[in-house]
């Protein structure tokens, strides 16, 4: 059973990867990568990394790829030929990739790692569970955890600054458009939304007086 799942999932992962490189339309490339990521999540599950699998889907498929989708939809897919970098690089790149693959395989298989041909260490309850991950993050890997969170913060700020509109809404007075703020939650305008008024008079007096003063009534 595990073999079948592995076969299907790895096929999905490799197929998705090839799709990313080979598809012309960036939108399809993004979709191929989503497929790749989901297959990878299945592989993670096989490796008993539940939390990583869930994080993979939530973070990658749910957030990172969403960004891609937005940007591709915004910029629009350019239907350019896949390979226009010139024949030299176009030919050299697959060769390079192939050579890299051979090298990696040699490195891993020839490394003499004993456990590589095994099913891995015996499974312990709680392996890869949120509890274990959390414990590791807050004990042994506290520094990387904190650094990573700062990195995220910096990246968020950077992205906002980079993608900020140079012209458009801000300058053209759209900030006048009313928006809901926290303060509004606590501010009760007279005659707005209270039960007493809904049961009683239709119009709050202040407003009616004002309209009367202006001569409407």
């Amino acid at each position, binding site marked *: 059973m595990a073999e079948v799942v592995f076969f299907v999932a790895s096929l999905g992962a490799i197929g998705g990867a090839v799709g990313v490189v080979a598809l012309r339309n960036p*939108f399809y490339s993004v979709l191929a990568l989503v497929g790749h990521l989901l297959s990878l999540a299945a592989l993670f599950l096989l490796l008993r990394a539940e939390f990583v699998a869930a994080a993979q889907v939530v973070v990658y498929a749910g957030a990172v790829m969403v960004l891609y989708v937005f940007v591709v939809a915004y910029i629009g897919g350019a239907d350019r030929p896949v390979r226009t970098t010139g024949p030299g690089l176009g030919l050299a790149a697959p060769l390079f990739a192939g050579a890299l693959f051979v090298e990696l395989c040699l490195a891993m298989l020839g490394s003499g790692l004993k456990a590589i041909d095994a099913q891995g260490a015996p499974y312990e309850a709680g392996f890869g569970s949120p509890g274990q991950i959390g414990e590791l993050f807050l004990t042994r890997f506290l520094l990387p955890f904190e650094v990573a969170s700062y990195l995220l913060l910096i990246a968020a700020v950077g992205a906002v600054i980079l993608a900020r509109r140079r012209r458009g809404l801000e300058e053209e007075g*759209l900030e006048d*458009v*009313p928006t809901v703020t926290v303060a509004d939650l606590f501010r009760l305008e007279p005659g707005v*939304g209270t039960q007493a008024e809904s049961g009683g008079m*239709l119009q709050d007096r202040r407003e009616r007086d004002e309209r009367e003063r202006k001569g*409407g*009534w």
Partner: protein
Amino acid sequence: MPVAGTDRPDEELLTINMGPHHPATHGVLRLMVKLEGEVVRDCKPIIGYVHTGIEKTAEDKAYWKVIPVVERMDYLAYYFNAQTFCMAVEQLLGLEVPKRAQYLRVIHLELNRIASHLVWLGTSALDLGAISMFWYCFREREKVMDLFEQSSGQRMHTRYIQVGGVFEDVPAGWADKVRAFTREMPRRVDQYAALLDRNEIVLRRLRNVAVVDEQTLLGLGVTGPLLRAAGNPWDLRKAAPYSSYEDFDFKVPVGTVGDNYDRFKVRMYEMYESVKIVEQALEGLPEGPFITEDRKVALPPRHELGTSMEALIHHFKLVTEGFRVPPGEAYAPIESPRGELGAWVRSDGSAKPARVHMRDPSFVNLQALPYMAKDGYVADLIATLAMLDPILGGIDR
């Protein structure tokens, strides 16, 4: 890629064709909308999809047969269409309308105004997403329709208002039914207000949206609730009373800001005022004929036909040919639920009008839409269109 994200990448504008078949355009209206993200940068109304040539048709019909034709223009304010046409013809004939007929006309006009505003309220609320309002409004509108049916036999396009008066006196007991309605209606409007006017979401959707100042509106020829919402108390019922409106005590609600909220409030209050007018008209309904005694214009009563040769001749003449109208031109403006509705009628002396042209308020007011919608959100464009209350039958005629 199936959707080209933008027309030209450097402008980031997305052109959207709203309509002619779109749930929120209140008819067969087409809007060419240029969007930048969710913001409307340009909006061009395109009309003519329900042009039915009513004005041309009217030229081929006897005067009294024109009434049902013009009634079908602004299909929510049919009494008003008939009233303005009849007033123009009466002006050409130099005809005096009996007091009772004038009062009866007023009652029906104001009931019709309520019905029209109810449809507006229901559909506008629907456009804002408040789906229940629609049914509540139509529940009350149904009662008005029933009253119309009892007085004229028809629910819509009643052809009740005739040249020289009204088609028939109201049946016995009708007044009580109207009173029952006018007693109930203000309570209902209170309830609508409680549902919408007390709702934070509605307030945020309407307040300070689509503000256009009074001068621009005047230049655009905008009249009616839209102009009053901007603070100009122009109401023909007050300014140039017709059909005995000077007899009634009512107020003209005006707004202060000229935003969608004011437009909403003005119409809500107009319903109260209309109810007041109907009550007063019922109270002071004078005795007397319901249509002019001029046998050249109005059909003789049925019972005279058997005894009076003259009546028979008049009847024959009117039914076969219709009455002739002395040559001339007349323009009769009245205050319809949407603004100044005027019929321009030219007579060449025959029994058929030589030209009937309607100054329909929807047609004129629609020009204000681009001014209102510009630089707002798409959602506000829909709300604004709803608050504009265009009736495409009136626009395209």
